[in-house]
């Protein structure tokens, strides 16, 4: 009896030693020398692997950061400035602070504003729909409403609003990784500076048709009327191809353009509610 136990123990121990030796030899043979700083940098990164930095994942980004001469143009949108500062400190490199950004949907073509002209009956995918035709409304530029951006968002920061048919960005969760921008076949989504106190203004339309055509397709379309350009004291608004664009680097958030816009295509975010004019007059009196 005891010899059986002994033989068993001996056999298993020998097997264990043999396999351990094999593992050790293989590990030695295929060992890859790596810069230890890559591991350190990777540990600093958020680990979301969202691809927002332009690399395939956090490790790939860490490798690029370690190899890079300077960190100009290297930015992790999820970790933001604090993480990038830590990365720079670990690598002994300089980094300039970047303004935080957020995704904005440049289309106000809700189901109310933009009447449907056909019924889309294919796979629920903007990519499929965009490959098929110009869209189920008179506007060839706006949101197709199938929600590819919401599917692409790794942070659950975009949701489709069933009442408007448009995506809504949750700015608390949005990290400006840019996956939604890449997923949108119409180029409706833009990453813009978040702005002081998260206040910002943007033209929520990219319709390049002439005013009349655009207005016919959507009541909230930018018609390229130039009113916003005229009222802007900072030359921040431009109209190109019949559509206005606000340069967020020049915009000082005076909101004159939004007031002047006849179609309401200019959207203001996180400003205190504007009191109606009459009320203001009363207050002064």
């Amino acid at each position, binding site marked *: 009896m005891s010899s059986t136990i002994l033989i068993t123990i001996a056999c298993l121990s020998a097997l264990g030693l043999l396999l351990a030796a094999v593992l050790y030899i293989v590990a030695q043979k295929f060992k890859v020398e790596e810069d230890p700083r890559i591991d350190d940098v990777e540990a600093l990164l958020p680990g979301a692997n969202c691809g927002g930095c332009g690399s395939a994942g956090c490790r790939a980004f860490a490798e690029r950061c370690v190899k890079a001469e300077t960190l100009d143009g290297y930015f992790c949108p999820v970790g933001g400035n604090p993480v990038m500062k830590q990365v720079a400190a670990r690598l002994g490199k300089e980094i300039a602070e970047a303004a935080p950004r957020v995704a904005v949907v440049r289309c106000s073509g809700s189901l109310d504003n933009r009447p449907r*002209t*056909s*019924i*889309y*009956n294919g796979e629920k995918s903007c990519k*499929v729909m965009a490959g*098929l035709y110009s869209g189920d409304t008179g506007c060839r530029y706006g949101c197709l409403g199938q929600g590819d951006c919401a599917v692409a968002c790794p942070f659950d920061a975009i949701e489709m609003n069933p009442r408007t048919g448009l995506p809504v960005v949750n700015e608390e969760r949005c990290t400006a990784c840019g996956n939604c921008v890449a997923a949108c076949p119409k180029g409706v989504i833009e990453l813009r500076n978040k702005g002081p106190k998260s206040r910002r203004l943007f033209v929520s339309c990219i319709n390049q048709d002439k005013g009349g055509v655009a207005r016919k397709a959507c009541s909230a379309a930018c018609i390229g009327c130039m009113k916003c350009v005229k009222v802007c004291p900072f030359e921040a608004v431009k109209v190109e191809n019949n559509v206005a664009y606000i340069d967020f680097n020049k915009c000082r958030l005076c909101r004159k353009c939004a007031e002047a816009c006849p179609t309401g295509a200019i959207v203001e975010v996180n400003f205190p509610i504007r009191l109606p004019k009459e009320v203001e007059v009363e207050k002064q009196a």
Partner: protein
Amino acid sequence: MRKLLVSPAPHIHSPENTRRIMIDVLIALAPSLLVSIYFFGFSAIQLVLVGAVTCVGVEYLIQKYLLKTEVTIQDMSAAVTGVLLALNLPPSSPWWLMLLGSIVAIGVAKMTFGGLGQNIFNPALVGRVFLLISFPVLMTDWNIPDSWFRAGVDASTGATPLALIKEGLAQGHTVDQIMALYPDLSYFQMLFIKVGGSVGEVSALALLLGLVYLLVRRVIRPHIPVTILLTIAVFSGIFWLIDPTQYTDPLFNILTGGVLLGSIFMATDYVTSPMTARGMVIYGVGIGLITMLIRMFGSYPEGISFAILIMNSVVPLINKYIKPARFAKEVKNG
């Protein structure tokens, strides 16, 4: 202006749908069901009803209250599982055995994997094997319950032909001696009515009728049943030619046990069988080989349920590596 539908091509669809396919399977099972009801009377009806109702009910409860997803019992797939499980049990099984088997089939084998289309193993077979291992006595009790229809027909058989052969061989008899002892083992008997076996195994002819219906309706392709039966015939044929006193002949092996029921209705389950014709052939050969290995060398007299379940586990691998015959064999270079 009229709003027109716009979608990518194609703009028409064949009349086929999942529900229609499942109903076709039930229709193909009808001849076997009728024969069983004729022979086993109330107990067959009871088993089939308990199976179908429990499977559908369990699927409904899990989808509605546990997963809180859309309820899809109307696709009839749960009903098919229930009926198939009933056909795989001994006719004398009590109703609660059927109930338990159905709960395991749907609750464990199907819904835990994500429902229709996601399960790795055939749910009805998982239910059957669960019962076979948990209740070995009940599951090999081949006593025949009374039937109103079958008054006067002798119903003395207490074991399946395969079990009789296995037992006899173990006692040192030759195949011919055993066959002579039991007149029920004639081919004619087995083709039409074979009492001694699961509910659905009674008539080989009724099962073959179901196969013809499935093939004509193009519900299944012939690859799987044909390769299983061929493999069993070839494998058992070789042994039989070597020593006919110790091994049974190919026809006996095909007609006995659950081979026909298994190869026509269980192995051809869409979800758990390969997608390509080549894959189906490999799968069928595998089932045939394992079945015969279990029959000849295993401790169970019958092995097709295990064979199918084992090959089920290989299906993902087959699907990954066995590609269909491509149109273009060569690739233009450059």
